[in-house]
C-alpha cells in the first residue's frame, strides 16, 4: 500500500491563537517575543506584520524599524498547548499514526482510512471544517506520499486550499519549488546552495550524491533524495521511542545562569515525559543553534538508563559544555531522549532512601499533570 501523508499547517499559529483570545489584535501588526528587549528574537509574527516585511528570527528592534506600531506579545504556552490538544484529539479520531509539532504542523498517515472516511480529499475537507469549528483557526492542507511532499503541497497556495500530489508526480511537483522548502535549510545551507547556483529543488539533481556530500557532508544524501521527490523520514508518533523538547533563548538569556536554567527545564520536561510513559532513556542528543543559524550537536549515553530530572540535567549540561565551542549567542536548544525502555517498578518491602526520590518525582509529576509543566520546578543551583 502506497504511503499517503496528510499535512495540516496553520499559518501564523501562535499569533492566530493570540488573536483568538484577544480579538482586538485582529488586523494589527504584532509579534511574539520572549521579552520587550530590542535584542529579543521574534518568535512568531501576525499576518499583518508579515505583510509589513517582518520575519521570524529578526530582532524586536528590526521589527520595530519596519513597523513602529508593532505590538509585542509575550508567549503563553498554556494557550498554545490547549489549542494543540484540541487539534490532537480531533486528528486522533481519524488515524493513530500522527505527529504534531509545537508549531502546530501536523503529519497524519492516512493509509487505509479510505473505507472509513472516504477519499483523502474528503477527509482533508472534513478536517479543515472541524478544525475551524473547534478552534476557529484556518488551516492549509496538503496530501502527498511523504512528509516533504505533503508539506510542499500544503504551502503551495497562500489561501485556504487543498492540494493533493498524485503518486508518481512528486519530482515534477517539487522540482520548480524554492530550496527553502527542504527541511533544515538554514542561512548557511541557503548560502551554500546560492554559491553553487542552486535556487530551485530541481537544480540539485544536476549534482551527484558524492558532490553533494562533498559540499554539505552527510546531508548531501538527503538533499539528493529530496530533489527526486523521495523523503524517507518516518512519522514520529507519541509512542515513537524518542522524546524531543525544545527551548528558545533570547539575547538576554545567554548568561551562564539562564542557560543552565533552560537546560534544567528541558531536562525536567524530558524527565516528566519519560516518567509519564514509565520508561527511561539510554541515549540523549543535544542540538544548539547559534544566532547565526549554525548548529552544533552531541550525543551522550546513559547506563543505566535514566529518567529523573537531575540525572538528565547533569548529562545534558555536560553535553552542552562539550558542544558549545563558539562564543556566539545561542537562540535555540533542542534535547532528545532515545533508546527508551520500560521501567519496572520494583515494589519495596522496606522504605529505602532512593525511594524518597522516586516519591518526590511522583508527587511533582502529579502536580504537573494537573496544573501544567511549569506549575512546579526545582530551584536549581550549580552544584546539582
Amino acid at each position, binding site marked *: 500500500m502506497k504511503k499517503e501523508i496528510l499535512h495540516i499547517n496553520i499559518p501564523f499559529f501562535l499569533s492566530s491563537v493570540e488573536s483568538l483570545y484577544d480579538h482586538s489584535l485582529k488586523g494589527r501588526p504584532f509579534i511574539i517575543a520572549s521579552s520587550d528587549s530590542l535584542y529579543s528574537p521574534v518568535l512568531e509574527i501576525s499576518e499583518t506584520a508579515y505583510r509589513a516585511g517582518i520575519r521570524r528570527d529578526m530582532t524586536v528592534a528590526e521589527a520595530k524599524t519596519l513597523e513602529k506600531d508593532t505590538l509585542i506579545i509575550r508567549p503563553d504556552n498554556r494557550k498554545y498547548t490547549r489549542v494543540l490538544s484540541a487539534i490532537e484529539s480531533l486528528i486522533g479520531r481519524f488515524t493513530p499514526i500522527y505527529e504534531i509539532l509545537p508549531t502546530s504542523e501536523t503529519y497524519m498517515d492516512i493509509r487505509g482510512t479510505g473505507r472509513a472516511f472516504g477519499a483523502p480529499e474528503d477527509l482533508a475537507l472534513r478536517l479543515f471544517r472541524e478544525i475551524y469549528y473547534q478552534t476557529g483557526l484556518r488551516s492549509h492542507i496538503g496530501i502527498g506520499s511523504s512528509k516533504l511532499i505533503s508539506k510542499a503541497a500544503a504551502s503551495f497556495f497562500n489561501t485556504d486550499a487543498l492540494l493533493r500530489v498524485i503518486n508518481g508526480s512528486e519530482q515534477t511537483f517539487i522540482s520548480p519549488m524554492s530550496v527553502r522548502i527542504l527541511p533544515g535549510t538554514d542561512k548557511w545551507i541557503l548560502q551554500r546552495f546560492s554559491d553553487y547556483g542552486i535556487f530551485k529543488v530541481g537544480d540539485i539533481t544536476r549534482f551527484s550524491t558524492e558532490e553533494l556530500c562533498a559540499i554539505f557532508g552527510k546531508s548531501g544524501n538527503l538533499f539528493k533524495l529530496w530533489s527526486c521527490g523521495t523523503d524517507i523520514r518516518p512519522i514520529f508518533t507519541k509512542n515513537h521511542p524518542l522524546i524531543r523538547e525544545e527551548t528558545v533563548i533570547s539575547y538576554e538569556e545567554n548568561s551562564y545562569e539562564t542557560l543552565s536554567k533552560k537546560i534544567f527545564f528541558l531536562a525536567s520536561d524530558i524527565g516528566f515525559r519519560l516518567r509519564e510513559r*514509565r*520508561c527511561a532513556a539510554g541515549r540523549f542528543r543535544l542540538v544548539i543553534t547559534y544566532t547565526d543559524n549554525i548548529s552544533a550537536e552531541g550525543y551522550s549515553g546513559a547506563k543505566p*538508563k535514566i529518567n529523573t530530572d537531575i540525572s538528565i540535567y547533569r548529562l545534558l549540561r555536560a553535553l552542552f559544555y562539550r558542544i558549545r565551542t563558539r562564543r556566539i549567542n545561542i537562540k535555540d536548544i533542542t534535547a532528545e531522549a532515545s533508546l527508551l*525502555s*520500560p*521501567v*519496572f*517498578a*520494583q*515494589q*519495596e*518491602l*522496606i*522504605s*529505602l*532512601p*532512593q525511594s524518597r526520590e522516586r516519591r518526590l518525582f511522583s508527587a511533582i509529576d502529579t502536580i504537573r499533570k494537573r496544573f501544567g509543566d511549569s506549575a512546579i520546578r526545582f530551584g536549581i543551583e550549580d552544584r546539582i
Partner: protein
Amino acid sequence: MKITLQKAEIEKAINFTQGIIDKRTTNPILSNILFSASDDKLELYSTNMDISSINQISANVETAGRAVVSAKILFDIIRKFPPGEIQMRRMDNNWLELKSSSVQYKIAGLHPEEYPTIEKPKKGDYVSVKSKTLLKLLKKTIFAVSIEDVKKILGGILFDFSEENYLKLVATDGHRLSLVKEPVSMKVRKKGENSLVLPRKGMQELQRILEETEEDIKVNIDDKMAVFKTETKTLMMKVLEGTFPDYNQVMPRDNDKILRINRQRFYDALSRMVIVSAERSNIVRISFSDEGIVVSSESPNEGEGKEFVEAEYRGTKMDMGFNARFIMDILEVADDEVIEMKLLDELSAVLIKTAQDENFLNVVMPVRMP
C-alpha cells in the same frame, strides 16, 4: 625471617587471606599481608580494619621474624611457582626473597611496624557450633543481603538470638527478605543484647571457611566484635552499627492464594525466560491459574518467550511481575522439592517457603509491570 614451606600450602593460605583485602583501599598498607614466623608455623595476617583474618600454616622456621608484602603480587608469583618447597627470606631493605630450586624473586616489602596491629582474640567463652549448620544458615540468607550502599545496616546479616536455643539469621535488601532458623545454642556476650548485624564480606569469608572444614567452629560474639575460629583460621569482624528493620512487621500474614510447584521445574522455567527479559533486567511475568503458571518475558529488542509449568494453585487468576533472580536465589538453596508461594494481590508481598520447612521463610516484593 627465613622459612621454608610447601608451595601448595602457602598458595591456599594467601588465597584465603587476600579475600579480605579491599580492591580499592584508600590506605595502601592494607593491600599487604603481614607474615609472622615462629615456632615452626607461619601466620598470615590481613585486615580491612573492619574484618581481619589470621591464617596459620606449618613451616620450617630457620629464623623467626615478620615481613609485609603486597598480597596481589605475592599471590601472582606463588601461583606461578613450580610445585615443591619455597624458601622465603626477609632482606635488610624489607624486601622478600622467594626461592625454589630454579626460580628466584625479590619483591618489594614494607617495614612490619607500619602494618596495623591486629589483636589476637582473647581466650574467652567460645561456643562450638556445627560448621554444616552455620553454613546452611548462611547459604539461605546471604543472597538477600543488600549489595548497594543505600542503607549500611542492610549490608549485613542479622543474627537474632531472641528465641531460646534457636539462632535466627535474617537478611534483606529492601525488596526481598530471607529468614532462616536452626536449633543452635548461642548468645551475645552482653546482657540486654539479643541480636546483632555482621557484615556481608565477613559472612562471605566465613562461608569460605565453613565450606572447607568439617570440624566444629568456635564462635565468640559480643556487642562489638564477632570471632569465628577453626584450628588454623581465625576471622574477626566488627558488628555493624544501626537498627535492623523489624522483619516481623513485613512478614505477610493475610496471603490467601496458594501455589505449590515443583522446585526444579519452576527454576528451569525462570532461568529460560530471563534470557529474553527486557534489558537483561530479569523481570518476568507470572500468570497464575488453576492449571498452573505461565512464566513469560519480553524484550523489545531481543524477543519474547513463555513457558507453562504445571502447578497446584488455589486462588483467583492473577498476573504478577517478578525479578526472577529473587525467586531463583531462593529455589537454589531450598531443600524441599515442593515450593509454596502465598500471594495476596498483584502488588503485595509474596511469601515463599518450602512445603515442609517452616524454618526457612522468604518474602519477595513483586514488580509493577508497565
